[in-house]
């Protein structure tokens, strides 16, 4: 019986005795017979996509449930016996099925079939994609996402246990999943892998979080499904499904915050056509403007930003065919902390010793050099066609144009010219076939092409940091999943081939390089419902990442960083195996998720300080070189919540990560330190809608990173504790919804430095910030 194996496993893990106590208390409390649970998933027969809001009825008991957005439902406290289950969903054929509940929890998948379109009152379903994977997945949506509005993608994702940020000041934040970031994780904008200049530590993802109604983090190695580089995990930024019938929804977000005197607006309109069945559209736009960020004792000079974004989509969906067009535009201008831009090593050392900027100006919205101006266009077309009830053909094409300009403090007219001016075009094509046989087998296989062209726009007056290059990546993959009762098993494999042709001038000399890489990757995973309250999933996946152009070809001064960086054209591809295990406990009052993982990376590429310095007329610089070593990353994420009453709720989430360089037997730099966020919330609303008024008090605890690399410009900053408080009110006005949020972050204006912020050398982090967030849906 699974429970026994689970208990042994826990002992082996030797983890959280508390956990076992909770387990036993439940086992005794529910020692009666009627403690069985029916769990399941409702999927569309023809495309295997989850069905939200289907009704699941147990006829004998007159109890039931409604499926959630992933198609999942749970019915608890059932006695052993035979039951008749009825599954209903508008426009679909009703399912009547008899099931036997014996001593165990039953996990049943129902596939619901669409009725003929000729019938009146039929609602054609939207074709909503959801990830179905056996690795640990966490989504940010609904109220949690509402609370995160106004923050950058990286900042928003800090709400997920195991996700932190690698930031450059307070305006540039890159998400970190289980210690990996930049090119080792993948971000999908509505299903298209985002291709910007992700290699740079100071290059934030070019995406507007307002376009999403759901942001999903996959914490496993998902190279097979999504292509190379998804070594640490995947972030999916998904817009809501388009309507397929007459509908109109307008949403306005209006936000302001005191720190940086930030203003942010976003509006969207979604509509469905009355005349043409299955036609729907959405347009969305947002704008953001902020000035200098305030640390508790001073303003950080030149840390303002402005951003404006637009996205639109149109879709047409019929019984067999679905077509979607999508376009998004992202544009930002970001100021970089003035004093973080240093001329040489003695400049750098002086400011690090000072621990804070020399320049402490008054507040301003001005953005001057050094700054970044980045724009990103993404267009996609997607179509699927149901060949028959078992097979579905999908085609997706994406085009992206990314332009990145970085301006330094220079002399005279050169100030108006960017020091780095890169244009990156990317084409992606996915062609794949999905299938499901009976209700047990489903899977897909397909091909994936990525073609990329990177050009330096001439006229910068600086030798390019990375060369012009053309890249072509072709991949072929296959994956299959088997579902039966409480068990899900999946496996997949993929082969990739990549060529890179790079060329540039260094002075008068033309440097050219032709490189090719190939790799095979695979994964296997499973999910098992151990008992009515416990489920366990495990996933073992391999991944690879070819070296990036900057790692291969960097040669020269990294302007502003007082560092000379030297690439190595002979670097090998990184190869990794990540094993992720997740144990989930869910009862009426408590929810606990424990994720443990090990990630072994061979030939991990890192920038190593050589300890040498380089002398020029400008002064001295540190020399860094790209090296490879075997790396081992492992850790735990724990998140949980408990309801003390229907008004009082407590939650906690924390993560621990360790990263070792196995060759040198030391630690890698910029690995997140141990941290925990916990809090209590109290519902103040009337008895029928208690959660309409909610006040939350939370406490973030971050330890000092005691596992420091052998060389760092400054020691790791001390640990810190912050208190945050928030209030949320939901008001229903006829059919319209009005949401008000008031948040105070860093309530006591605590001065702190975060180890994962590259500007910790120069300044302390953001002080108190009070935000007001208004949202109106009509």
């Amino acid at each position, binding site marked *: 019986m699974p429970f026994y194996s689970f208990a042994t496993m826990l002992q082996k893990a030797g983890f959280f005795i508390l956990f076992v106590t909770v387990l036993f208390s439940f086992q005794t409390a529910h020692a009666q017979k009627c403690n069985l649970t029916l769990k399941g998933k409702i999927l569309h027969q023809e495309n295997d996509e989850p069905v939200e809001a289907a009704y699941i009825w147990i006829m004998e008991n007159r109890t039931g449930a409604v499926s959630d957005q992933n198609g999942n439902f749970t019915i608890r406290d059932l006695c052993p016996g035979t039951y008749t289950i009825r599954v209903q969903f508008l426009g679909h054929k009703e399912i009547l099925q008899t099931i036997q509940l014996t001593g165990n929890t039953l996990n049943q998948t129902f596939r619901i079939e669409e009725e003929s379109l000729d019938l009146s009152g039929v609602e054609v379903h939207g074709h909503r994609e959801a990830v179905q994977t056996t690795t640990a997945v966490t989504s940010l949506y609904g109220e949690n996402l509402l609370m995160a509005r106004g923050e950058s993608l990286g900042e928003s994702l800090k709400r997920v246990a195991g996700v932190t940020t690698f930031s450059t000041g307070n305006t540039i934040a890159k998400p970190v999943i289980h210690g990996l970031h930049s090119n080792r994780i993948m971000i999908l904008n509505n299903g298209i892998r985002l291709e910007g200049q992700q290699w740079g530590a100071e290059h934030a993802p070019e995406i507007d979080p307002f376009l999403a109604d759901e942001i999903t983090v996959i914490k496993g190695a998902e190279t097979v499904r999504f292509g190379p580089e998804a070594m640490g995990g995947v972030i999916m930024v998904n817009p809501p499904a388009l309507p397929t019938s007459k509908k109109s929804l307008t949403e306005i977000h209006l936000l302001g915050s005191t720190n940086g005197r930030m203003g942010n607006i976003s509006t969207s309109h979604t509509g469905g056509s009355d005349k043409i069945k299955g036609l729907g559209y959405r347009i969305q736009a947002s704008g953001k403007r902020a000035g200098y960020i305030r640390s508790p004792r001073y303003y950080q000079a030149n840390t303002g930003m402005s951003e404006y974004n637009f996205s639109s989509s149109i879709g047409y969906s019929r019984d067999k065919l679905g077509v979607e067009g999508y376009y998004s535009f992202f544009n930002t201008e970001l100021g970089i902390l003035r004093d973080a831009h240093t001329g040489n090593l*003695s400049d750098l050392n002086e400011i690090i010793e000072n621990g804070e900027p020399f320049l402490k100006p008054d507040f301003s919205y001005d953005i001057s050099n050094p700054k970044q101006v980045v724009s990103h266009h993404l267009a996609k077309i997607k179509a699927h066609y149901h060949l028959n009830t078992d097979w579905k053909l999908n085609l997706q094409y994406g085009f992206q144009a990314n332009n990145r300009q970085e301006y330094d403090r220079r002399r005279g007219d050169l100030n108006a010219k960017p020091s780095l001016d890169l244009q990156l075009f990317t084409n992606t094509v996915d062609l794949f076939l999905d299938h499901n046989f009976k209700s047990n087998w489903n899977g897909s296989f397909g091909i994936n092409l990525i073609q990329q062209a990177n050009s330096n726009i001439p006229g910068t007056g600086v030798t390019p940091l990375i060369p012009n*290059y053309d890249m072509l990546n072709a991949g072929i993959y296959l994956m299959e999943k088997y579902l039966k009762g409480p068990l899900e098993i999946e496996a997949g494999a993929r082969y990739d081939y990549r060529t890179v042709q790079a060329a540039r001038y260094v*002075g008068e000399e033309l440097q050219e390089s032709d490189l090719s890489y190939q790799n095979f990757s695979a994964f296997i995973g499973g999910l098992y419902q151990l008992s009515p309250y416990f489920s366990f999933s495990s996933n073992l996946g391999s991944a690879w990442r070819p070296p990036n152009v900057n790692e291969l070809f960097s040669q020269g001064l990294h302007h502003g960083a007082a560092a000379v960086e030297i690439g190595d054209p002979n670097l090998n591809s990184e190869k990794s195996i990540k094993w992720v295990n997740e144990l989930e406990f869910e009862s009426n009052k408590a929810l606990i998720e424990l994720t443990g993982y090990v990630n072994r990376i061979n030939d991990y590429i890192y920038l190593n300080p050589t300890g040498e310095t380089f002398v020029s007329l400008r002064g001295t610089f540190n020399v860094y070189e790209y090296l490879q070593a075997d790396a081992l990353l492992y850790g735990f994420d724990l998140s949980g919540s408990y309801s003390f009453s229907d008004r009082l709720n407590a939650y906690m989430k924390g993560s621990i990560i360790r990263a070792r360089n196995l060759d040198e037997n030391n630690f890698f730099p910029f690995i997140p330190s141990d941290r925990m966020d916990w809090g209590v919330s109290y519902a103040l609303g009337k008895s029928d809608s208690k959660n309409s008024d909610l006040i939350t008090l939370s406490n973030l605890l971050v330890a000092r990173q005691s596992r420091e690399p052998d060389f760092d410009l400054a020691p790791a900053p001390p640990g810190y504790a912050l208190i945050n408080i928030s209030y949320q009110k939901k008001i229903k006005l006829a059919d319209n919804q009005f949401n008000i949020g008031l948040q105070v972050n860093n309530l006591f204006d605590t001065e702190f430095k975060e180890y994962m912020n590259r500007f910790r050398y120069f300044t302390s982090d953001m002080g108190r910030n009070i935000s007001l967030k208004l949202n109106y849906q009509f």
Partner: protein
Amino acid sequence: MKNLRKLPLYLLAILAFGFASCESEDPEKENDGEVITDVILTFQELDASNNPVGAAVSFKASDPQGIEVGATPTIQPVNVTKGKKYQMTIEVLNSIEGEDITEEILAEADEHQFFFLGSGITSNILTTSYADGNGVALGLKNLVTVSSSPGTNNTQLQVILRHDLDKNFPGANNPNFANYIQAGGETDLDITFPVVIN
């Protein structure tokens, strides 16, 4: 919906277009516009009433490749005579672009400033003052006095050019301001010339 049958064709057409329009540009030579390759200090001896005496002598620090890994700058020692007064002018060049950066510095006198440090200054062997005229603290033109009893034949003169500093920072109008970094900005030049005293 007959049109939709042709959809794959349209998609293919768009696809072909996307791929064709998408090749990287040929790389072009980029001349480093900002690099300083040569710094020339010209010493003109002055008499008591600040009139030139004899011919001016120049000393050069050069790094012909600019900021490139591997090359180290060559710096000529500065020769001066004890007890004498000199006018020291500074010329800054970019030999890669064939550009005289001195003019740019002069044009942006409000954003630039030279500071003079090193053992020659700190042990009071050399005394410097700005002589750019009109009370401007810049340092392209300076007066340098060599001590009549230096106590040594060898010393050093560190020439620092700061860019984008706060020129009104207290103490920043002193050419020997040791805490120049506190005035903000960044270093464009940091060269230590050996000085031989005859």
